[in-house]
């Protein structure tokens, strides 16, 4: 009987090509759909229908009126907190923040000015929304050195805006 030389027999190699094809396709899929998602957060506002048109009668503190004016392109042209003009310089929101800090003081918790005070936003119709968010940021708190959010005034309401034109 003739015995075959087993050394010469071909090794059954694993075919890698289809797997590599699929793996690369998966890789391309995940790379193409990869999107860095920016963290988002909310400013919570409780605003029933009556609060938009009329002030709440039982408020102990009069609301702080923040008037924001805009040009036709939507740029902020002026800002005024009650009767105080905050100007239109780069640090206007910083000034607003300092004003709010002065009004609110260091006291926090139930019954404090921070909890009772309310800010009314009077904005021009055309004003870019980003300025409103900047103003709400300046009014509603700041980040402390230990990276905590320190809240200031949380009650915010919109007054009907002045029509465009």
């Amino acid at each position, binding site marked *: 009987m003739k015995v075959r030389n087993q050394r010469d027999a071909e090794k059954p190699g694993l075919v890698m090509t289809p797997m*590599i094809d699929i793996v690369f396709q998966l*890789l391309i899929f995940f790379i193409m759909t*990869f999107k860095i*998602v920016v963290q988002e*957060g909310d400013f919570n506002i409780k605003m029933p229908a009556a609060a938009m048109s009329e002030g709440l009668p039982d408020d102990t503190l009069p609301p702080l009126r923040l008037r924001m004016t805009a040009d036709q392109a*939507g740029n902020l042209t002026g800002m005024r907190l009650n009767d105080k003009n905050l100007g239109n310089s780069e640090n206007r929101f910083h000034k607003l923040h300092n004003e709010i800090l002065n009004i609110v003081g260091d006291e926090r918790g139930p019954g404090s000015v921070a909890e009772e005070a309310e800010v009314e936003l009077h904005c021009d119709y055309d004003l870019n929304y980003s300025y409103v968010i900047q103003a709400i940021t300046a009014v509603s708190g700041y980040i402390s050195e230990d990276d905590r*959010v320190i809240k200031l005034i949380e009650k915010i309401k919109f007054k009907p805006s002045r029509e465009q034109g």
Partner: protein
Amino acid sequence: MRIQRPKAGVEEGDMTPMIDIVFQLIAFFMVLVNFTDAEQDERVKLPSSELARPPDGLMEVPLTLQLTKSGTVIFAGEEVPVEAMDHYLLREAQIIEAQGNTVAEATVIVRAHEEAQTGKVQELIKKCQDNRFEKFALRAKQEEESG
């Protein structure tokens, strides 16, 4: 003289390290892939705020309204003028009530473009109020703290 035949067969490189790396890359992208961003839309670029931190918990009854720069609302995949939102908001209010919740406890998440007109945002809020919504969340994207 005897000439040696060259060995038949193709020289194959070792594929193992490459496959290792490729699988690691796939695992990386699979873990980071985000399927929960259904409410995000390319047409809306949110304003940024340093106080915009992700909420601690999920909202119980959320309703997301996206306002574009041109003042239309992206709602259920279509762009609707703010003036025509009553119909949609009424329907949403009915759905919320049919689910056993009250409209007042629903939170309207306003995702408005940073260059949208504030007046349009207010009009949208007014429409929601007319349909008995009371709680609003103005959404902003997180900004790196400056200074």
